């Protein structure tokens, strides 16, 4: 079946510069806030000399711990206090991490605010910071109990003695895998333009969940959620970093209220590393024990991380392979003098899949078995712990089709056996599994007299293709050409279904959540339209008995009228309805799958590892727009490969300073680092998940990509690198 495909409808605005992101809003009488951050990692502020800054031209106000903006409440539970910074900006004089906000200067212009900020002199009492994860992981603690499943031990059977089970296994692997901190580094740093009028806040602030952002702002500012209007039609990248509310938006809103003028706050790239969240470092030990034929007997997965946010055990291990003895545990290193840990694309899944899929590769080497055969020997048809059947799983076909497309059979089973001039060439593979699901959400569909229909939901499009998916699904549900659909998103005034859907575009679930609700809302709206056609004054179908909706027209009594014409005749501005999708069928488990295949070339003299080829075969249910889905997968794969090749937030242990907090020193892949990634979609619609059959894809490419790279590096060189990123120094050592 040919997959539908369409150019993104927001592309024109994005290639012409017309798309307005948060900081692109310039309001009359607007002033600029510039944050000042701490230059120690632990201790307290003794004094602040603001005299030079106050005397500088254009300065209006300087907020400090001694002159705090008004915050009246705390971030609403259960998620935000765990995944975002619960402490208010400028709450007190205590310094918890290097780069913490200690002041914000507000001035008439951006230059005045920035340069006055540089004139502030802060005197600190500094204490040695607890900033080294390498040190802290030696003495981890039990995770806090939060009510969330993260951090809770998982055992099978309940009284498992994993060390005994491992010892009883005929073949064993036990290794530790380390991943440094990573930073989202979306191209658009967090920014907000806030303005108050009559006690109501309008704020332009990029977010993945406009309704959650409005609720969080309202709760902290102490106003009603209905009095906060978040506008965020375009988001310059998010990756989990804009799922929750961070200091720049809070400070902009509070300052705008106090000064009675619109305030723009734009985070600098360096500040972004510390005043917003990041992916915490993790250290994972995997013990795998098998029978001689490759069947797993025992899986031990023990992780240490800064907080429960990144729980690779919970997120990864119960979804991959069958084994009778399982022990999964997370330990944490609390109270570190480091910036806040939050979710980042495939939280837990990315780290967990790197460790598990590396360990499986090591096990395959030890068994002398093909890595795909080992995975098929332990194939999971239902979830490992609850034994809940998977709705639709074609991972076996992903392996088969991927191996064929990639030429897996040409792989040398001996490592370091293939060379091409100065380059050692190796092939590796991995599995990607990502839980899928959906929230029950509400969509509004509205017919208008100009012949268009609006499809609206308070979700978000940070580059995912949601604008286009909503238009395409609306067109399908209303049986009209897609150019007659006007999607609406990125606005907290649009509908959501309540508590289980306020977070918008997170967990790769926006498409699976929103599209079935569009079908329900369209049906409701058509019902209202038919009723209108038979009752409204001016309609040619008043009193007709058997009026039906057909392809944008109302048909009955031997006549027909387009909905635009109908509403024009009845002088009605709009007819529409809200519809809420049915709850998820909990009898099955849902996940998306992919098999990744990677070729790596390592220079034998410099140790430089380069990406050669990459193929991924994806089983993610129905693909609703092949063009944007492909981009999501290729971008997702690159996000995961970046962890393998480049990314590392470098924390100086002695100071807690992130020494590479800029885009020249924190390496991201550039165009010349990459290659064409071959993507193939299997396209088996998951109709048990929803009527549209679409599962999640946004994070899927990221999962497992680093392991495919690392396994290819091993195949190329015979060197097993268990600490990311895989840099030349590690390959030359």
């Amino acid at each position: 079946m040919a997959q539908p495909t369409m150019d993104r409808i927001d592309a024109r605005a994005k290639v012409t510069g017309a798309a307005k992101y948060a900081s692109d809003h310039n309001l009359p009488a607007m002033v600029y806030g510039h944050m000042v951050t701490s230059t120690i990692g632990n201790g307290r502020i003794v004094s602040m000399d603001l005299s030079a800054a106050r005397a500088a031209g254009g300065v209006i106000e300087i907020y400090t711990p001694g002159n705090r903006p008004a915050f009246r409440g705390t971030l609403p539970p259960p998620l935000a206090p765990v995944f975002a910074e619960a402490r208010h900006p400028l709450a007190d004089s205590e310094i918890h991490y290097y780069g913490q906000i200690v002041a914000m200067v507000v001035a008439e212009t951006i230059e005045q605010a920035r340069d006055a900020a540089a004139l502030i002199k802060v005197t600190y009492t500094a204490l040695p910071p607890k900033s080294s994860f390498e040190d802290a992981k030696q003495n981890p603690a039990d995770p806090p109990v939060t009510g969330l499943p993260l951090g809770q031990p998982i055992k099978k059977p309940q009284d498992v003695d994993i060390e005994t089970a491992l010892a009883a296994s005929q073949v064993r692997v036990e290794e530790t895998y380390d991943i440094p901190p990573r930073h989202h580094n979306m191209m658009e740093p967090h920014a907000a333009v806030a303005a108050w009028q009559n006690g109501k806040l309008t704020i332009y602030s990029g977010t993945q969940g406009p309704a959650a952002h409005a609720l969080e702002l309202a709760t902290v500012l102490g106003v009603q959620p209905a009095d906060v209007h978040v506008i965020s039609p375009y988001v310059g990248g998010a990756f989990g970093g804009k799922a929750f509310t961070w200091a720049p938006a809070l400070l902009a809103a509070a300052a705008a209220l106090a000064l009675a003028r619109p305030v723009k706050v734009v985070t600098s790239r360096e500040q972004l590393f510390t005043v917003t969240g990041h992916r915490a470092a993790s250290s994972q030990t995997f013990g795998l024990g098998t029978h001689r034929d490759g069947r797993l007997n025992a899986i031990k997965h023990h992780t240490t991380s800064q907080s429960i946010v990144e729980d690779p055990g919970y997120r990864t291990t119960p979804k991959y392979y069958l084994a009778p003895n399982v022990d999964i545990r997370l330990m944490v290193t609390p109270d570190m003098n480091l910036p806040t840990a939050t979710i980042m694309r495939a939280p837990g899944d990315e780290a967990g899949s790197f460790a598990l899929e590396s360990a499986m590769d090591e096990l395959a080497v030890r068994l002398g078995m093909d890595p795909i055969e080992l995975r098929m020997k332990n194939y999971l048809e239902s979830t490992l712990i609850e034994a809940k059947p998977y709705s639709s799983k074609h991972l076996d076909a992903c392996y088969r089709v991927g191996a064929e497309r990639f030429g897996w059979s040409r792989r040398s089973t001996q490592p370091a056996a293939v060379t091409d001039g100065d380059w050692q060439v190796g092939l590796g593979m991995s599995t990607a599994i990502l839980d899928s699901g959906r929230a029950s959400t509400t969509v509004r569909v509205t017919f208008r007299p100009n012949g268009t229909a609006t499809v609206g939901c308070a979700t978000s499009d940070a580059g995912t293709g949601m604008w286009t998916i909503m238009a395409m699904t609306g067109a399908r549900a209303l049986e009209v050409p897609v150019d007659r659909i006007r999607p609406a998103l990125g606005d907290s005034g649009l509908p959501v279904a309540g508590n289980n859907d306020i977070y918008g575009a997170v967990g790769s679930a926006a498409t699976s959540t929103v599209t079935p609700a569009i079908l329900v809302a369209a049906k409701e709206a058509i019902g209202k339209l038919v009723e209108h056609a038979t009752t409204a004054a001016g309609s040619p179908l008043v009193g007709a008995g058997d009026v039906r909706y057909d392809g944008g027209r109302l048909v009955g009594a031997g006549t027909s009228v387009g909905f635009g014409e109908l509403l024009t005749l009845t002088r009605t501005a709009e007819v529409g309805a809200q519809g809420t999708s049915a709850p998820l069928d909990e009898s099955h488990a849902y996940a998306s799958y992919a098999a990744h295949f990677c070729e790596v070339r390592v220079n034998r003299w410099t140790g430089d590892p380069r990406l050669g080829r990459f193929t991924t075969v994806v089983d993610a249910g129905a693909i609703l727009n092949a063009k944007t889905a492909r981009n999501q997968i290729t971008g997702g794969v690159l996000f995961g490969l970046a962890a393998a090749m480049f990314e590392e937030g470098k924390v100086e242990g002695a100071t807690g300073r992130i020494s590479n907090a800029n885009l020249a020193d924190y390496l991201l892949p550039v165009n010349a680092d990459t290659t064409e990634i071959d993507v193939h979609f299997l396209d088996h619609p998951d109709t048990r998940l929803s009527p549209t059959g679409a599962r999640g894809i946004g994070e899927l490419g990221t999962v497992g990509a680093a392991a495919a790279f690392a396994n290819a590096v091993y195949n190329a060189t015979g060197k097993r690198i268990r600490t990311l990123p895989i840099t030349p120094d590690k390959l030359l050592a």
Partner: protein
Amino acid sequence: MEEQSRDDEVSRRGFLLTSAAAAGLTAIAEHPRPAVAATAAGAAGAAVVEVALKVNGKARTLSLDPRVTLLDALRERLDLTGTKKGCDRGQCGACTVHVDGRRVLSCLTLAAGVSGKAVITIEGLADGDRLHPVQRAFVECDGLQCGFCTPGQVMSAVALIEEGYAGSEAEIREHMSGNICRCGAYQQIVQAVRMAKEGA
């Protein structure tokens, strides 16, 4: 505020800033020097420079704080917000514009330093409703996701095709590597550059 041309006795701060502008730009001597005005008090930051720019074909005159970068002049003074600030230190390419036909990082360029020059931004590329071929190719090849780096990518792509650096995939990748795309739409960007070049 008394405004008076004081080219001959600028404040120390104004002098340093103008020197910095000159040091950052090699071609400045060929162009009219910005007039520096200072208040009688000579307070730091109170100096303004008169800057004349031709932006997207239109003459614009601005009285600017000499610290204003070309990027902030476009975004905050002229409301041309298509050009993006991704890092503000020349490391990401999101702020790429054309100055006298050359690719320039507008965040590292002081507005006063390009007085008298012609600036083309992303807003000036299309011919009315008719997109530039590179813009069309980015739409068709899906050479973007979030779109925040896209103006810079498009401005770089237009220039590199004109400069003759779009001969092969490897050449395109090398010459587009000053523009970071965190969404990772690089292969779609390469396809777009190739398509635009073949159509050019």
